[in-house]
């Protein structure tokens, strides 16, 4: 990589950049974002309209909440693909419950209930991963199928078009209302606040608590972590529980902002969330990952899926581009790590 003569005192710029990227992998994601944004802005200067910015933020919220859960699981050396099924189950069952039985339930009861429901599913995941001693990918593929098909078989398949008043209001609430020059009104939804709180809580857990230390330690090397006195069982319960908890919240946010509870929603989204977290610099084998990097990864994935049409790239190429980004970022991180 370095064709600059290597001298210890003043390494060349490329070498220093390469080194910096190794220490801060999220900078690479940031670079990809900047390149994408500049490319789009050159091709279509209208891109910087405030409503586009708000749209991208709005589209990042649910992904971002999911990604925080996945980040914690990945940091602990596991992987979870069942969180979208958990979210779909919680959002649908809870909307059904509230609509049919407690139509007046306020949001401050609904959100904690969703979090609790999701956490229960998550803890079951953790229990299974620990007791079956099988790769968490395979275990959570199993629970994903069970949860999703249990929802469709036993709970229901019909859409809920008329949401309870409190959820409807939550989806409509706006932080900032911007009236553009042409009279276009765009709003920054209040759901963004949920992402802010969730991201802060995740950062606090990972960076400021003993559990955070334990998560990184068990992700880095489970054997050594165990000998250091960390309880792997508790860590697994916690990380999968946290992912489930956030999935429950993300489900309610999804319903509120779409104003529709569809049990078939969110299926297949898990891969792009994992992709976002990996793009954010978290190693799939655990032991690393930052909240900022993950948020950047989410932003990049959202950008790719929302703005390609602005530059005239057919939207059918979207999946392929996300795939290429994952391979490039994954390769660079893996190579850097080996040096």
């Amino acid at each position, binding site marked *: 990589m370095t064709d600059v003569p290597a001298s210890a005192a003043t390494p060349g710029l490329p070498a220093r950049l390469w080194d910096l990227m190794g220490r801060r992998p999220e900078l690479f994601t940031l670079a990809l974002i900047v390149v994408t944004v500049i490319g789009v802005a050159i091709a279509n200067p209208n891109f910087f309209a405030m409503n586009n910015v708000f749209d991208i933020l709005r589209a990042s919220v649910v992904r971002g909440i999911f990604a925080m859960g996945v980040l914690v699981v990945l940091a602990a050396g596991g992987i979870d693909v069942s969180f979208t099924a958990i979210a779909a189950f919680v959002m649908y069952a809870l909307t059904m419950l509230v609509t049919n039985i407690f139509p007046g339930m306020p949001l401050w009861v609904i959100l904690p209930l969703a979090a609790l429901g999701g956490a229960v599913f998550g803890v079951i995941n953790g229990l299974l991963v620990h007791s079956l001693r099988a790769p968490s990918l395979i275990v959570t593929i199993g*629970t994903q199928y069970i949860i999703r098909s249990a929802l469709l078989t036993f709970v229901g398949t019909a859409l809920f078009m008329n949401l309870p008043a409190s959820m409807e209001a939550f989806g409509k609430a706006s932080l900032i209302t911007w009236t553009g020059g042409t009279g276009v009104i765009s709003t920054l939804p209040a759901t963004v606040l949920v992402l802010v709180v969730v991201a802060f809580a995740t950062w606090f857990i990972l960076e400021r608590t003993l559990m955070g230390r334990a998560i990184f330690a068990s992700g880095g090397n489970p054997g050594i972590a165990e000998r250091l006195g960390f309880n792997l069982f508790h860590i697994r319960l916690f990380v999968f529980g946290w992912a489930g908890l956030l999935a429950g919240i993300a489900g309610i946010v999804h319903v509120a902002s779409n104003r529709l509870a569809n049990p078939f929603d969110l299926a297949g989204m898990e891969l792009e969330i994992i992709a976002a977290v990996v793009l954010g610099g978290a190693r799939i084998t655990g032991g690393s990952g930052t909240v900022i990097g993950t948020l950047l990864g989410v932003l990049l994935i959202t950008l790719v899926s929302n703005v390609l049409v602005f530059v005239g790239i057919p939207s059918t190429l979207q999946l392929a581009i996300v*795939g290429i980004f994952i391979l490039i970022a994954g390769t660079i991180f893996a190579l850097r790590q080996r040096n």
Partner: protein
Amino acid sequence: MIKTADRQTVFLALINVIVLVAGALLAGANFVDSYNLQVMAAQVPELGLLALGVALAMISGNGGIDLSGIALANLAGITAFLVASRILPPGDAPMAFSWTFAGIALCVGLAGGLINGLMIAYTGLTPLIATLGTQLLFTGIAVWLTNGSSVSLGYIPPLDDFGNLPVLGVPLCFALFVLIAGLIGYLLRFTPFGVKLMLLGSNEKAARYGGIPVKRMIVITYAICGILASVAGIVIASRAGSVKWDYGSSYVLIAILIAVLGGVKPEGGYGRVLCVLLAATALQMLSSLFNFLGISNFFRDLAWGVLLLALLASARVDLSYWFRPAR
């Protein structure tokens, strides 16, 4: 080792028999007549081939898995049809067209498998991320090529025969599947490659110090997975008469389920082709039985999920104590 392996084969064969008998009892004699048996046999190869790919990737160890199988199968079918129908129109020389189609599909599969293998072996990407990325990439290319819609092959006699015609009571595609499974089984059991692959899967470090060319082994293994996926793609195209980017979206799970049901160790180092084959037939018959009984697809997915977890659990429980009095 031999004893446990044999017991597993017997166990899986028993499951096959039980499902057949249960089918005959629950769904009537139609379930076991030769027509339905042929229909079921013709349905096995798609999933069976993908499951063999997953099994090989798992055996190679180090978190080995291939999530890109069905995506590559669809891409191979789509690319092969689009390219082959440019080269020569299918109506003029159906036989030549079919062989060209198959040849191109195999090349696409080999290329896709090589991409997976090279990324995993030489860049240090974990198999999970590499095949996740290529899964999106292959699916994405397939969407782009077809604009997201299904492409009909039209009626091409040799391909249609391959997918649907039984010869001496055995559907051709099933015969090919058994042949390929036999080859892979031979490769794993009786060649130096197979022995080395098992060693590599059970302990990579030891394998490297033992002088096994780890990188080359990984590349070859994933290349074989790619070829298996493209054969699955040919079977899908010939049976369905059309190719589509999202065909078989649940196959990723079911292929893993079959591999685990067949006793392949997800952590690597052990797996038998015969068991995977028996697992594939058992699962196919169970699936057909659900169809016969009019059980919904949602419930079937639930059953697969429960089955997968139950299998993982059964590997944790030592059943030998309960079997001992019987022997």
